[in-house]
């Protein structure tokens, strides 16, 4: 068994306090990695319970009240405590300073505070669960949440409110770090696309999150003090809530997917050994998505009772936001063209991303299309669509990134065969879970239904079967990655022979990342320049 010899960020200090009081962005990233994985496991357990209940048309496993709490907790944990922080807080935290040649974030203490705030928000959510849970759906629609629900709305909402600050501070930290801490020579258009994507996502975190925070406070005020804001019985307007909620919660999808696209660009470049085709288009499409993403929230409300003309405007804007996503996919394809492609685990995940994101994106057109949305809104069609983007897309990229940077993070390689195997299992399980849901959705099965008419059963059985494969697929990496910490092959500084500042330093990196200040003299992904 080989050992890693020298001093690095992991063995630089032992004991719980050296972790819980660390200001090192890499150690904070590991704190996030462990806690986000726990949240994912919990959210996944709720998903498995939901799929088991839906195996039969009758509501025969749990009570309706329990079922409603299960899908609510699944949504809240997965959205606010896993998908939103996953890539930025784990991979972004670890890599962003290194990629721009910095020793740490601009505000290391704020970075640690973000993790504690995130944990405090999680604690509130756990307390809410211990006290009986919440049954409003992760969307907290009023006046159900503000007046009618008899569950732990206030504590859960506070949990989401608190976690929002973690997101805001992380976004702020990224923005300031990217603006002020780039190494000499690291100009804006030499930044890895991973950094561009995080820049765009950070803009949304900083600008969007306060809106959902305010909205949640308003719900709490109505619930506690009967201030008439959203409940018509008190003189409020329930559609106002939906506008405020989706003003954040639609862009929140881009907080998840933009960093995933950033990971994708790194993977595609490394494993085809080419500079990303149309670098500036891929970079600026991230910004375009961030800006346009703020203008499409009303497409969640085509049948909400908002004006028909508002529906028309939000529809056309939603189609426009599809274009920058298409640009990215086509540029990745062009990068593969005449590349030198090796199908190692991270690249298999990247291909999986392209597959699932393409299906998710194309089915998004069905939903942006007004007349079809009228039929499929609030059915399983939409459940399938957003899982393709938020789970299929984001987790494929997340796991691809984890595998790609695992040697950098831990100093050791993961077992390649198991890596490929789990990527294929996840891809198959995912499609088997969610493809049938498009069909059952168009048939008319509404979402959030504890029981359903019998003719929907076969499709639901397929979906549950897929979910069990998917569950196993997600568990395999957990085992072999932990195994690799001790038994994995020592990776060395650059096992992929990749470009990028993170591959110029030892694995695992020393606490201060770089010996001196690195000087950047070449473009990002500077592969194949020996031809010139």
């Amino acid at each position, binding site marked *: 068994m080989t050992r890693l010899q020298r001093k690095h960020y992991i063995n630089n200090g032992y004991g719980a306090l050296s972790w819980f009081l660390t200001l090192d962005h890499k150690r904070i990233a590991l704190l996030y990695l462990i806690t986000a994985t726990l949240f994912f496991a919990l959210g996944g357990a709720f998903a498995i319970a939901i799929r088991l209940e839906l195996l039969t048309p009758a509501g025969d496993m749990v009570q*309706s009240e329990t079922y*409603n709490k299960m899908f609510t907790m699944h949504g809240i944990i997965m959205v606010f405590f896993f998908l939103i922080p996953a890539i930025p807080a784990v991979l972004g935290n670890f890599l962003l300073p290194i990629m721009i040649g910095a020793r740490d974030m601009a505000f290391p203490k704020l970075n640690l505070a973000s993790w504690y705030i995130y944990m405090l928000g999680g604690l509130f959510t756990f307390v809410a669960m211990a006290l009986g849970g919440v049954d409003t759906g992760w969307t907290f*629609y009023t*006046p*159900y949440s503000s007046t*009618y*629900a008899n569950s732990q709305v206030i504590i859960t909402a506070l949990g989401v409110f608190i976690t929002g600050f973690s997101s805001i501070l992380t976004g702020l930290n990224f923005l300031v770090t990217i603006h002020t801490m780039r190494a000499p020579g690291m100009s804006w258009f030499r930044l890895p696309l991973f950094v561009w994507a995080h820049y765009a996502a950070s803009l949304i975190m900083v600008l969007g999150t306060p809106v959902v925070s305010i909205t949640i406070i308003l719900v709490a005020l109505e619930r506690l003090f009967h201030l008439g804001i959203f409940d*018509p*019985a008190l003189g409020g307007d*329930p559609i106002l809530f939906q506008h405020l909620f989706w003003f954040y919660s639609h862009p929140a999808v881009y907080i998840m997917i933009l960093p995933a696209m950033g990971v994708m660009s790194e993977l595609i470049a490394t494993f085809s050994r*080419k500079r990303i*085709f*149309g*670098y500036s*288009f891929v970079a600026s499409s991230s910004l375009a998505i961030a800006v346009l993403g703020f203008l499409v929230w009303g497409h969640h409300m085509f*049948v909400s*009772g908002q004006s*028909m003309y508002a*529906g*028309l405007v939000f*529809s*056309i804007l939603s*189609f426009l936001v599809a274009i920058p996503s298409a*640009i990215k996919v*086509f*540029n990745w*394809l062009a990068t*593969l*063209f005449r590349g*030198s*492609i090796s*199908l190692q685990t991270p690249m298999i995940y990247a291909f999986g991303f*392209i*597959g699932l994101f*393409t299906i998710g994106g*194309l089915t998004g*057109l069905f939903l*942006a*299309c*007004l*007349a*079809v*949305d*009228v*039929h499929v*809104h*609030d059915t399983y069609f939409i459940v399938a669509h957003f899982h393709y983007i938020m789970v299929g897309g984001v987790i494929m990229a997340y796991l691809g990134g984890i595998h790609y940077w695992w040697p950098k993070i831990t100093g050791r390689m993961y077992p390649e065969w198991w890596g490929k195997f789990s990527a294929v299992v996840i891809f198959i399980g995912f499609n088997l879970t969610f493809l049938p849901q498009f*069909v059952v959705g*168009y048939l*008319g099965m*509404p979402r959030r*239904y*504890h*029981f359903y*008419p019998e003719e929907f059963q076969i499709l639901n059985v397929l979906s549950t079967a897929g979910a069990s494969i998917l569950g196993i697929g997600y568990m395999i990496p957990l085992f072999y990655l932990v195994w690799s910490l001790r038994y994995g092959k020592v990776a060395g500084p650059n096992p992929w022979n990749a470009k990028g500042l993170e591959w110029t330093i030892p694995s695992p990196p020393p606490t201060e990342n770089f010996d001196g200040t690195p000087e950047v003299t070449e473009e990002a992904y500077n*592969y*194949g*320049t*020996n*031809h010139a």
Partner: protein
Amino acid sequence: MNSKFPLFPEAASSFAHHVDTLYFFLIALSVFFSVLIFGLVLFFAFRYKRKPNAEDPKPMLGDLRLELTWSIIPLLITMVIFVWGGLLYYHQLTPPANAQEIFGIGKQWMWKFYHPEGRNEINELHVPVGRPTKVILTSEDVLHDLFIPAFRTKMDVLPGRYTQIWFTPTKTGTYHLFCAEYCGTKHADMKGTVTVMSPLEYQGWLNGELGQDRMDKTGKELFKQFACQTCHQDQSLSRGPSLTGVYDSMVLLNNGKTVKADADYLRESILKPKAKIVQGYDAIMPTYKGQISEEQLIQIIEYIKSLKEPQKEVN
């Protein structure tokens, strides 16, 4: 609802086939682009597989013409979908003027429908085939959503105001009716059936229950009971405006604006009388909020609707 394992819903309204055509177009488009993209990914992966000790390929920085091509073509395609979907949406949301009106009230966790002829029903909706039908909807508590998959339409049902859904059934039969907006514990139980009948059968069904008064008749009694007629008389000096022929007409307000006196306007005028004042009248009407139920409201509205002057042109 015959097949044990359907893959496609029945189409039983005038616009169901239009929605399906658009849906199939989108599926064809999605399959085309999915095959194109996956096909290229796999082809490139094998065609350009890395060879041992191969040199890195030549970099390709980008190409403006290509970028424009794959921006503009998707843009044009999406604009076609937008216009197609938008026109059909306009049709789905705009009931024809001759649509027959039914009222629907959602509450945790049941649907109640009121036919003007006086028959009410719970979790069932009977409608005649071939006739445009509009359901005016409201909720007594939280948000609900009336969803009829076979008609390819749905609409949220809100407390405090009316929304509407319309369709022309084209096929007799029984179809699902769901609540599609999560509304609490028994959300999945808030479902029922829509029965589409021949006009003759429908007429028979309407008359099937004895002792039911027409809604406008019940409404007239309520109108008296709440003493509405003390002010709303057909005389020029009455304290409130005349209500004859007011339904769906344009009303001039004291701020110079005109509004259409539809169900939502009448509802607001009863519950929040100070919100919109008809020109020439004082804001003296007291609110009936809290004194009048949703059911009574629609009955009074149905009565007001019945007050027609044959000689007057009504828009």
